[in-house]
């Protein structure tokens, strides 16, 4: 059973406490497996043209009310701060957004530790500050469905004036849903309280909806700050978009250099990710991969770290354990429930194979769009980059960084707890290089129409 059928079976309309008919479906709808889709970026040259596009677009953005239904395709839309400015929003509204959003991702490079080869000066052109105003993502069940919806979208764009299409990027993966390194990804997702679905085994308790939907109560017990006025802010959310180029060859070469045989390569890679390639998590499959377990959503996330305080099964430094420590003992007072993210990442480029070497990396044709949704998306990504990715202090590992997504300006280490003595591997480099990114606002359907109609202007149609 696929993820969506499975969700549909668990959906209970009487448990819904959110205004699903006003929330973009993409926030709650998981990516299907297999999946295809396209990201596109639009620049607004004239406010009137941009608003006209949004007004027409609003009719094509599905609401979350049917978020567990089967759909052939669905579209999500998000707008950057420069985009809101270009659309002519009033100063009072613009100033009510979080400071980090107003500054944009490139200006937050210091807080994000986006330095050296990840610095904004090195990013691809579409991510230069002030370029990306509107981001559209279309997901589809298969290529035919995608082509169908693309033809419609192109027709709408052709009717538009005052906007420029900056670029598009097609992505997709087969039913194994694997990332560029050959690992099944996006398995663990937070459950939004009030969305009408009970937790999966191991999904932990439902997270307060205000962590993901603006205007709802957050984990503090009250709502987070919301853009003003209410029709603009309520039922919206925020998105972090970061495009990574994956150096699959360098990763393979690194594993080869550390291992006597293929089994040892797989062992070290699993310790780095926290899961085997199939998605089977180390805590449930300590010795070897278990593809049946990896593919079973009822079991592949049903674990805790309660019995693994030393990290002998899943290292504290493993990517999966760093980014969601669950019940691990951490050195620093932290609330793991306010750093959860709804992940909507997508993979692009050729499938992984063991024989890829670092010469291939120069083609820069594989990678992933790391995309997530959270009502505190900017605080969260800056926290993750500073504390859980580019440092080891929170798990008593000093300066050690995430072995998969960390920035390693000089080669770093990776600690694998073993008996009687830990194994410390040198030579970890930046296996995922940042090529650009932006902070985005994901408006409600009401807000899309509010912006589209220019509702703040005198004499605007109601």
């Amino acid at each position: 059973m696929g993820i969506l059928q499975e969700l549909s079976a668990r959906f209970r309309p009487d448990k819904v406490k959110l205004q699903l008919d006003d929330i973009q479906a993409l926030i709650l709808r998981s990516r299907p497996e297999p999946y295809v889709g396209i990201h596109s970026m639009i620049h607004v040259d004239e406010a009137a043209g941009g608003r006209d596009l949004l007004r027409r677009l609003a009719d094509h953005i599905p609401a979350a009310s049917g978020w567990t239904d089967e759909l052939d395709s669905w579209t999500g839309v998000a707008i950057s701060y420069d985009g809101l400015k270009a659309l002519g929003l009033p100063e009072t509204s613009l100033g009510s957004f979080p400071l980090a959003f107003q500054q944009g991702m490139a200006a937050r490079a210091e807080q994000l530790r986006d330095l050296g080869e990840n610095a904004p000066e090195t990013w691809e052109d579409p991510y230069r500050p002030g370029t990306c105003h509107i981001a559209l993502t279309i997901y589809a069940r298969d290529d035919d469905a995608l082509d169908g919806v693309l033809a419609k979208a192109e027709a709408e764009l052709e009717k538009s004036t005052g906007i420029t299409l900056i670029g598009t990027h097609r992505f997709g993966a087969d039913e194994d849903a694997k990332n560029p390194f050959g690992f099944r990804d996006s398995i663990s997702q937070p459950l939004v309280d009030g969305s009408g679905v009970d937790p999966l085994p191991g999904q932990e308790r439902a997270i307060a909806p205000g962590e993901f939907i603006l205007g709802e109560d957050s984990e503090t017990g009250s709502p987070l700050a919301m853009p003003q006025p209410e029709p603009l802010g309520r039922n919206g959310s925020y998105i972090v978009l970061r495009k990574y180029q994956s150096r699959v060859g360098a990763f393979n070469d690194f594993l080869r250099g550390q291992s006597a045989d293929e089994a040892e390569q797989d062992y070290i890679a699993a310790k780095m990710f926290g899961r085997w390639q199939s998605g089977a998590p180390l805590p449930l499959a300590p010795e070897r991969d278990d593809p049946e377990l990896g593919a079973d959503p009822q079991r592949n996330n049903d674990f805790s770290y309660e019995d693994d305080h030393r990290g002998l099964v899943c290292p504290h430094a493993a990517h999966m354990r760093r980014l969601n420590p669950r019940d691990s003992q951490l050195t620093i007072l932290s609330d793991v429930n306010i750093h959860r993210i709804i992940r909507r990442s997508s993979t692009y480029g050729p499938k992984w194979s063991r024989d890829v070497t670092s010469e291939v990396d120069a083609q820069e044709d594989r990678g992933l769009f790391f995309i997530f949704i959270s009502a505190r998306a900017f605080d969260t990504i800056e926290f993750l980059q500073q504390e859980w990715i580019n440092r080891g202090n929170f798990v008593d590992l000093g300066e050690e960084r995430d072995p998969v997504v960390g920035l390693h300006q000089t080669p770093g280490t990776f600690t694998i707890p073993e008996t009687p003595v830990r194994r410390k591997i040198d030579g970890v480099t930046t296996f995922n290089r940042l090529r650009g990114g932006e902070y985005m606002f994901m408006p409600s359907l009401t807000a899309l129409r509010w912006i589209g109609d220019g509702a703040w202007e005198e004499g605007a149609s109601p």
Partner: protein
Amino acid sequence: MTKSIDPRLADESKPEEIRRRARELAEDLPQLAKIALEAMIRDHNPDYKGTANKAGRAGMQSGNVSELTAIAKVKPGGADRLRRIFDLTNGNMDGAQRVSTLHDMRFVFFDDDTQILFATTYDGDWDTYINDFATKIPGLMDLLFANIEGWPGIDSPEVKDFIADHQIDASGWFVANPQVTVVDTRRYQRMEHALEDFLEKSRANADMDPATRQALDELSTAIAQPEGVDY
């Protein structure tokens, strides 16, 4: 050359100012040159290396360690209330201890208890964990800061702006161990005890193989002879 904002120098004429600055420089120069020279010739161990960065939005940062200095108005009676809290807890605040990024905190009242100076040294950037405090120890944070005029509450969206608005960057600040976090220090202490235990057991092991003996001898050379503290 920027004009001083010290009001006592307001009447100084331009030539007087130039003469004063020249005189001050001549007095300070020999010692300054010595400090600069020492810094240049010393081959710095990266373990001791400090930096002069900004700690996120405000304050200074040296290596992993940052400073926060803030001055604020105290509500009427607030100083007494806070003193009672400090007396009751003996300065030992549970919750603050669990934070594990705090090296120290200092509360100083002045101007007849109408103002407070709050100064702290901590690891990382100042606002990184503030959301965690708001959900994990909101009571403690509000207990300490509710006596400050205008405190919006730890869970308020305005709390970051409030703190930043009251902060004053330190002009000079010295950190003995800029690379060492509070968490590191605790680990070093644990390591010290475990190492003593290990050395004791090793001493008792008469059948040690040569490789182990050699490794232990190198360990002792590295840790068991006095060494001056070099900053």
